[in-house]
Structures are given as structure tokens and as C-alpha cells.
């Protein structure tokens, strides 16, 4: 039953709380225990994998399909859809079970011993000749079984390796799909996920809802949901998740948990030990405190980035850890910060985000002009809007008030300044020239939006020659200090590469050149192509630089958001870049392979890239006729 009544909204909140895996009560996040939450939240989110499995079930075509991937990627949910399409429930047991005419093992990890798991896989292979067999297997278990069956099924291990690398592979009636390659930010899936938790029919309010009289946004939960329904907000969240995907594999379970936490969570400690609001606690608090009940500590824009969660919890979640590394709102921006100090300089839309009262309104209390908790902050002088906070800091003559507001502005736990910048990222990007510009200015990954745009152009087969030249220039600078693409991709001597530290403030020093690869021998591609696109939802967030080495071998450098960031900084500033040692380790490995593969193309004599004059120069040593080669 989908919640459509006032009472139903309370059930929705409880269902959402049960999805949040950051605390003790998380039963709803697991398929086996999901049914109560599922009844409230309605039909599952449609994914491409589910559709593919349902179509396969309906075709009756025999074969073996193995779904592998992290826990929480949706293997069991997809399997359940397969079973339902055969008009059967998901089997209770983990091992191989008959589901209509098919066989299903919903979690091979649950089979007790390694030997039994190997036997199960062997049986599945044998039975797949004339039956449909579907297995859900964690990668480690699958690898063990493939090793154990190497003598009789030698094809299995290479097939698994290939699937893990390419996302999906199908051969001789066996298909292995690695759900870690499923991208939750793909266009239709993303909207499906956000709608699943925020669609209007779920959020009509509950009995005694503060929103009944004071407007829907008086309820912190409904105000968060309303914001998440906005197209610009959900696209901004999508952009962040996409960038984080370069660093982590966000699972469906983790993403649903994060969105649910962003709606129900609280970073102030007022919501109790669980760190999440219930309808009852919201009503009680609103009754006691009125408009000052909720502030930005319960705002989705802070909660999405892990506000209120312990460092250990954030570190345990790959998605939250990756989002935290983007430092959204940590970057100062003259214009955005100026709006906070003086809302008079901002346009109407931004003034609304600040909670500024309409010019005609007479000056009133600290919450005058507030629309919801999203524009309020708590200070030592009470709750107030961003507008009032900035005004107090800028023009108040009361030192106590100024002190209280300054403290809130830079409060180490949740600085109001950061909250304000985050709100601009999620809801005020138009004032900064669009989502990409807002993210670029207010996070520490200013170029990642460009990478996503580039990945999509590459996927659509557009001309990306200019982008390729830019990447080559940036890479040339990173490895030699010489930023020029006219020489092609410069491969430094691996030894010189060890001496290069692009993060150093010392100017780059000349480097010996191993070879130059014409830019025509390099191309950009996206990692997820072919079968994986048919089976799973994919979204292109990275590109691969493919370079033909001297021996005809094609070498790949995966350009992740972090490497792209370093490349762009190198190209733009030609100075120290904010790279990590780890990125340089990756580049060294790539160029080492390139040098080894490019031995036939080695430069004759000695060529040195001289970053001080921006040119490649020949070097000759003094020559004496002693038999030494010139």
C-alpha cells in the first residue's frame, strides 16, 4: 500500500529511517527485511537490469546469468523481479532453488562451505544448458569458486576477470554482470531514485503536522523533500554523486540511505540519539519553539554531505567519504560571501534563499523573511536568518550580538558560512551562471563538471580533439613541466619522471625525453561501452586516454576526476597543482608502460624538455675521438 493519507506520512518517515544505514536501526535497507518499508514506499525503482532480467525470464531462453557486485547494488532486488515475472516469490533459501522452471540462488555467499559453493556453481553451469539459472554471488566467493573449478571450467576465471573489468560479458550461454559498474546517476534512474523518496503523494502531511497551519515548509522533513523535488536541486545532488563516483562505487543501498538521511536527519543533537527526526518529535518541537524549532542543522544540503554523522561513520561509507573530499562550501567566494554580508547586493532569488524580508516589510524579528528552516541558523543570540546573521555581522553596533554571529559563522562543527554556500550550490546556482559554475566555484574540484560533460561528448561520438589537446597539454606539464601539445604526448624518461613533483612550488626543471607520441595516436573513450550499456544503467563520468604505443599495443590511462583536476590545473596555471602522491604513482606506472611499449619510437640522441623556455632542445655532450658514441 502506498502512503496517501496523513497517517501514511508518519509511516513514510519511519520507512525512510529504516533505510538509513548510518545507525543501528537499518532493517529496511536489506531486501530480506524490506517488505514493511516497501509497502509504504510503493513499487521498486525501475532499473535497466530489472527490465533485462524480466525480459529474459519471459523469453524462457536457457542460460546462466551471474550477478556480482558490492552488497547493496540491487542484486537481490533484481532477482526478486525475475522471480515475480515467473509469478513466483523470491526463494527463502540462499542456495540453488527452483523458481518455476528456472533455478535461482539469491545469495551464494550464504552457502556454508567453499566446496559447496563450488559445487553449486558447477551444477548451475551444467543445468544452464536447458534451464534458466540466475545466481547472485559476491565477487570474492565467485573468484574462490572459479579457482576451485579451474580444472574442469578453465574458461570461468578469465570470464570473471573480463566481466569485472568491462562490466558485463556474455559467452556461450553464460553472462556475468558486475553491478559495481551500474551508475545510479544515469538519466532515468536518477529521477526514479529521487522520486521514490520524495514524490508528492508520500508527503501530504500527518495529523497535527506543523505544515497544516503554518505552511508545508514549517515541517523540516517536508521542507527538505520540497527542495529535493526542485529540478536544480536534484541535478546538483546528481552532479555531486557523479563526481564522487570517480572515487567510490555508490550502491543503491548507500544512496537511498543518504537521501533518506538528508530528509530526516539532524546535526544539532536535538532529534535525539538516532540523529533523525520522527513526525512526533517534529510536531513536539514545533509546538514548543514555533518558527525557531528547526535550522540549517536539519537542512538536506548539510545532511547530504554527512553533517551530524561521526567521522568513523562517514569514513565507513565510501560515498560519504568521497563526498566529503569535495569540500563543498569550504571554498571562499567573494560574490557568494558578499551576498551573506550584504543581501542588498543580491538578486531577488538569492535574497529569498537568504531569508531576507521583502523591502516593503517593516523590520521585524530575527526570523522575519524566513521561508523555512533552510534559511535559518542557530547562534548564541538565538535563531535567525542568513540575512539577519550577515546584517548583524556587518552593521550591528552591539558587540555581544556581533560576537555571537561571528561564532556561528565559523563554528567548527557546522559553520553558517559553509551552510550558506552549500545552499547556493543546491538552490541558487542560476545566480552564479549554472550548476557547473556553482560547483566549480564552491567546491575544491572546479573542473569535474567539465569532465562529466566531456565524458558525455565522448560517449555520443562528438568531436573532442580540443579536449584531447588540452589533456595532452596538462599531462605534458605534469610529467615534464612543459605544457605544449604541439609536440604530441611527451613521454619522459621514467627516471626523470621520478624526479618530477608537480605539487612543488619549486619551478619544474628540465627532463630527459624518451619519446613523443603524435596526438593522432591518442584518443579519448569512455569505459562503459557495449553489453554493459544494454544490461545496466550507466552514466559516463570518466574518460580513458587510449594511446597506441610504439609496438602497436594500446595503453590506457583512466582519467578520474582527481587526475582530470590535476591535468586541468596544470594546463591552466602551469604552476604547482594540488595533486596527490597517489595520482603521480599512477602516472608513473602509465608512463613506465608507455616507455617500455614505445621503445621503437625512442628519440635519437638526447632531447630535453626545458620548461623555462617552453621548448624541447637537443643536447650534445663534448666529443673526443676515443671510441665513445656521439
Amino acid at each position: 500500500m502506498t502512503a496517501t493519507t496523513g497517517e501514511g506520512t508518519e509511516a513514510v518517515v519511519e520507512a525512510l529511517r529504516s533505510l538509513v544505514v548510518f545507525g543501528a536501526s537499518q532493517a529496511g535497507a536489506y531486501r530480506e527485511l524490506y517488505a514493511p518499508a516497501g509497502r509504504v514506499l510503493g513499487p521498486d525503482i525501475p532499473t535497466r537490469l530489472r527490465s533485462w532480467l524480466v525480459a529474459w525470464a519471459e523469453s524462457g531462453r536457457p542460460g546462466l546469468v551471474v550477478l556480482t557486485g558490492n552488497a547493496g547494488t540491487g542484486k537481490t532486488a533484481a532477482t526478486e523481479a525475475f522471480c515475480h515475472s515467473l509469478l513466483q516469490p523470491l526463494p527463502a533459501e540462499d542456495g540453488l532453488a527452483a523458481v518455476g522452471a528456472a533455478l535461482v540462488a539469491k545469495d551464494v555467499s550464504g552457502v556454508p562451505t567453499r566446496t559447496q559453493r563450488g559445487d553449486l556453481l558447477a551444477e548451475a553451469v551444467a543445468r544452464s544448458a536447458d534451464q534458466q539459472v540466475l545466481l547472485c554471488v559476491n565477487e570474492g566467493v565467485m573468484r574462490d569458486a572459479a579457482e576451485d573449478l579451474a580444472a574442469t571450467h578453465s574458461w570461468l576465471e578469465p570470464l570473471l576477470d573480463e566481466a569485472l573489468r568491462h562490466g558485463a560479458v556474455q559467452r556461450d550461454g553464460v553472462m556475468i554482470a558486475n553491478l559495481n559498474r551500474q551508475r545510479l546517476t544515469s538519466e532515468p534512474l536518477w529521477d526514479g531514485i529521487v522520486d521514490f523518496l520524495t514524490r508528492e503523494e508520500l508527503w501530504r502531511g500527518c495529523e497535527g503536522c506543523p505544515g497544516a497551519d503554518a505552511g508545508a515548509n514549517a515541517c523540516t522533513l517536508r521542507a527538505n523533500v520540497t527542495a529535493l523535488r526542485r529540478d536544480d536541486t536534484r541535478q546538483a545532488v546528481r552532479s555531486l554523486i557523479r563526481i564522487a563516483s570517480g572515487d567510490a562505487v555508490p550502491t543503491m543501498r548507500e544512496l537511498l540511505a543518504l537521501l533518506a538521511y538528508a530528509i530526516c536527519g539532524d546535526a544539532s543533537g536535538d532529534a535525539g540519539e538516532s540523529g533523525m527526526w520522527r513526525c512526533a518529535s517534529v510536531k513536539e518541537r514545533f509546538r514548543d519553539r514555533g518558527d525557531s524549532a528547526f535550522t540549517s542543522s536539519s537542512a538536506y544540503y548539510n545532511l547530504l554531505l554527512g553533517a551530524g554523522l561521526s567521522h568513523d561513520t562517514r569514513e565507513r561509507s565510501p560515498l560519504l567519504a568521497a563526498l566529503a573530499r569535495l569540500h563543498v562550501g569550504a571554498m571562499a567566494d567573494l560574490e557568494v560571501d558578499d551576498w551573506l554580508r550584504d543581501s542588498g547586493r543580491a538578486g531577488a532569488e538569492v535574497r529569498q534563499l537568504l531569508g531576507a524580508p521583502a523591502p516593503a516589510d517593516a523590520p521585524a524579528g530575527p526570523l522575519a523573511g524566513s521561508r523555512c528552516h533552510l534559511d535559518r541558523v542557530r547562534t548564541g543570540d538565538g535563531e535567525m536568518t542568513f540575512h539577519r546573521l550577515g546584517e548583524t555581522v556587518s552593521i550591528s553596533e552591539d558587540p555581544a550580538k556581533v560576537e555571537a554571529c561571528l561564532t556561528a559563522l565559523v563554528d567548527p562543527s557546522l559553520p553558517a558560512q559553509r551552510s550558506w554556500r552549500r545552499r547556493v550550490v543546491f538552490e541558487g546556482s542560476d545566480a552564479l551562471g549554472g550548476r557547473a559554475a556553482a560547483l566549480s566555484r564552491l567546491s575544491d574540484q572546479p573542473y569535474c563538471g567539465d569532465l562529466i560533460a566531456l565524458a558525455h561528448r565522448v560517449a555520443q561520438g562528438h568531436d573532442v580533439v580540443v579536449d584531447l589537446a588540452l589533456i595532452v597539454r596538462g599531462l605534458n606539464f605534469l610529467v615534464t613541466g612543459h605544457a605544449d601539445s604541439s609536440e604530441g604526448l611527451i613521454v619522459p624518461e621514467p627516471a626523470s619522471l621520478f624526479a618530477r613533483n608537480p605539487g612543488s612550488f619549486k619551478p619544474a626543471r628540465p627532463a630527459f625525453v624518451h619519446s613523443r607520441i603524435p596526438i593522432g595516436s591518442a584518443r579519448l573513450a569512455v569505459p562503459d561501452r557495449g553489453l554493459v550499456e544494454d544490461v545496466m544503467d550507466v552514466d559516463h563520468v570518466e574518460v580513458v586516454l587510449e594511446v597506441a604505443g610504439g609496438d602497436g599495443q594500446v595503453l590506457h590511462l583512466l582519467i578520474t576526476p582527481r587526475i582530470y583536476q590535476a591535468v586541468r590545473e596544470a594546463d591552466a596555471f602551469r604552476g604547482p597543482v594540488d595533486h596527490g602522491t597517489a595520482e603521480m604513482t599512477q602516472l608513473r606506472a602509465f608512463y613506465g608502460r608507455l616507455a617500455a611499449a614505445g621503445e621503437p619510437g625512442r628519440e635519437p640522441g638526447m632531447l630535453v624538455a626545458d620548461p623555462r623556455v617552453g621548448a624541447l632542445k637537443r643536447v650534445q655532450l663534448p666529443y673526443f675521438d676515443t671510441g665513445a658514441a656521439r
Partner: protein
Amino acid sequence: MTLRLAPKAIATALFGIDPDRDERASQLCAETLLTLTALEFAPSDQLQRSPKQRRFALRSLVFGVNFLSDQTEPLPGDDEMTAARYGHLLAIAEDFHGSQNLVLARTALANLIDPSTEQGTPAQHLLMPFHRSLLWYDARASGGRYTARKVRMRGSGITLARMLAAPPQSAGQQTAARAGAAVEGIRNALEVESPLARAAEQLEAALPHGLSGEPQLEAEEMEAWARGGEDRLAGFATGLCSHADGVVGQGGASPPARIWQLRSVLALDLAVDCLRRAWQATSTPAEQQALLLAVAGPSRPDDRVRLRSERSYAEARMALLHARGGIDWSAEVDGRTRRRLDVPVIQPYRPAAAQDFQRTAQLVFENANYNRPGDGVRVLLESIGMSAGGTRYRYLSASPDLLAALVGALSHEMPMTSHEFFVRLAQEWGLVVSPEAARGTVYAQDLEGSSLAANARRFERVLMEAGLASGLSDRTVLVGERAGRGRA
């Protein structure tokens, strides 16, 4: 007469090899490679030539200092130019004899100076050891004349080279085979075709053959060589040969990367061997014989693993310090130690009081400097990126470079899961990272499993970011695919 109470004698008796605080990973590695080069990479239990490679022409160009200033012999290709003049022209990097952009060549070569060796005079600075023609021995100026001689290289590298060239017989056939493969791999990496090598060779080739004579093999070098064949170092040799073979035989890494990893592995193996002998000498309980590595979290006071790692490091250093006990007062000490002990120990000493052995030993221990090997282990760990946190809150960690070396050293067994990798680190080097690896150690009692699990996750992240591992699932991080699969 043997100076049985001299700090060096005690350290050598205790550790087999006496690490010195001047001897960082780079010096140790360079001396090892120079010795293997002197042997022409042939398996041999005889050292016929000194590893003291001069390369004064190359050094004159790189450092802008004329290392040939006292050499008046004419060059074979130009009777009018002496070696001293040649050195001078290289030092000022002025184009001559058909050279072009010599200044640029100097800067490009100077770019390869190993920053960890840039202490003291340029005569003791080293280039990164990426080719045999870029290797040289320490030098020192005396009366305006430069000679290759022992300054920071102290012979430990010669001992390690002996273990690789001819390991102790008791180490067994398998170790001998791994040693042979390691030496062959080192040769391949050091002799790869490169313009750097061509430049270095061309500069040296201009000098008269046998300029200043062949460096003489010294008694100390012979002793250091012989030490590497002693049976008491057989266990050390077994690990060293296996790790060196793993590093130089791995796939997916360029020859310079392999040599750089070898540098880390040589230093780590020596440091860990010293620690193990110190633990043995001080009867340290088995569960305490491990080092806890940590990747620091954001807040030091709340980071229990890091705090425990700080203690782990301090305890290891204490073990090294205390392992220097055991004194026979009737034996001799060297002059420097005698001067230190004279007033506080030797003058008050009376034969009648000799029965108070513990007290006297304590006084000697407190007043003489027996901690050079302890400092030696410290600088070895520092120079391979295993020490973090500054001097005040020093703890043990592992930089991406060191992790790459550890993955390379185990390349025979790669790929493996991160869980297995962490367990293997504990088995091979006594390095504890994860709950599984902590089993049976004091860290399993002192720390919660969740803290160690978080620590392991942080290491997994560093491994993945460095391209040494890939995250295949939430439970499985696969380490060393590239290192293992393409084994050379």
C-alpha cells in the same frame, strides 16, 4: 686486539650488520648496487674489485664542482686538454668540443639528485640509482684532491650485495635460486638503454683509462663482504633474496620503479632484521614483536591506532637501545668511547667494586654512545617513508612508494586480496595493519577490532589511489594485479 666493548663491535656482534645513522636507504642501496656492478652481476663468493666507483667527470658536470682538479693527464682524444681542464669545463658547463646545451644537460641531470642524500658536501650527494652508469661512491676532498672513500656508505650495502651474489649456504638452494634471479633482474633494470646512461658513459669515456688507478679493495670491505656469507644471517638473506627477486621480477613497473622499490625493500629488511635481533636479545614477548602501521585520521587524540603506533615505534626503539647491554669490563674500548667513559666510569672503577657488574654496566651504557645502530634503524625507516608525524608524535605508516615496494616484494604471490596482503605483511616484516594481522599480537588486546578495521580500510584506500589495488566489492580489494600478472 679486538675492541670488544666498542659500540661498533657490540652492534656487529648483536646484529650481524651494523646500521649507521649516516646510512640512509639511498646510501645502502647505492652501495649494494655498486658492489653488484663491481662483480658484473656474476654469482660469486669472492669480491675482487672495490665498489668505489668515482664517475668524477659526470659529478663535475652535475654539481658544478671540478672533481678532477688535480688530474694532469692529457685526454686520449685531445693531447692538449688535461683531465683537470676537462673537469673545469664540465663544472662551468661551457660548451666545448662540439657540445651543445651543456647547461641544460646539467640541469636535467641535477634533477635526478636524490633529495634524501643532499646533506653535507656535493661529494656525498647521489643520483637516483636508475642506471649503473649513474652510480658512484662517496667522495671526499683532501688537499684539493678528490678521492672515493667511505663517508656515508659504511659497508652494509656490501654485506647485502654478498647475500644476493652468494647467500649463506645454510639459507638453502631455493634462496640461492631467488638470489640469482634477483641479481639478474637488477642487472636488467640497471642496464636498460637510456640517454642518461649514454650521457654518463660518454662523459667518463673521455678520461684516460685507469686514471688515478683502480680503487683498492680495503680490509673493511672484505670484512663486510665476508659477513654477508655468515650462517647467522641466513634467515635475513632468505627474506632479502625473496623480496629483491619479487621487486625486480614484477610486471607492470618500469625499471626505475623497480630499482626505487628495491631501495625501500633493502632498507626495510635491514631495519626489521635489526629489530628482530633486538627483540630476541631483550627477550621481548612474542606478542610484542610487531610494528603497528597507521594511516592517521583527522584527530590525533581520538585516533587510537595512531596513538598506539606511536607507542609501537617508541617501544621498538627502546628494544634497540636496551639490546646494547652486556659488558665485559676487562675488554678494550675504542678511543672515543674511552674518552666518554673516563671520568664517569673508568676513574671511579676499582677492581674491588667489579663485582657490582650491573651497576658498572649501567654506567657504561649510560655514558658511552651505543645507540648509533638505533639511530641507523630510525633513519632507514624515515628514508623509506615509514615514519610519519614529525619528531614529537612520530608513528609508523607507509607511503604509497613503500606500499608499492611491499606489493612488488610479494609479486610472486600476487594478486591477492587486501586481507591476505595485510596478513602477509605481518608474516614477512611483522607489520600490523588489520585485525587479522594483529591476531596474536599485543595490538589485538590494546585496540578494538573496529579501529584496526578502519585502519585497514584507510590503507586499502591508499593502495587503490596509488593504482596498487582495485576495489572489486565492499569486501574485496584486490592487490597487486599488475605486479603479479605481468611478472617479468
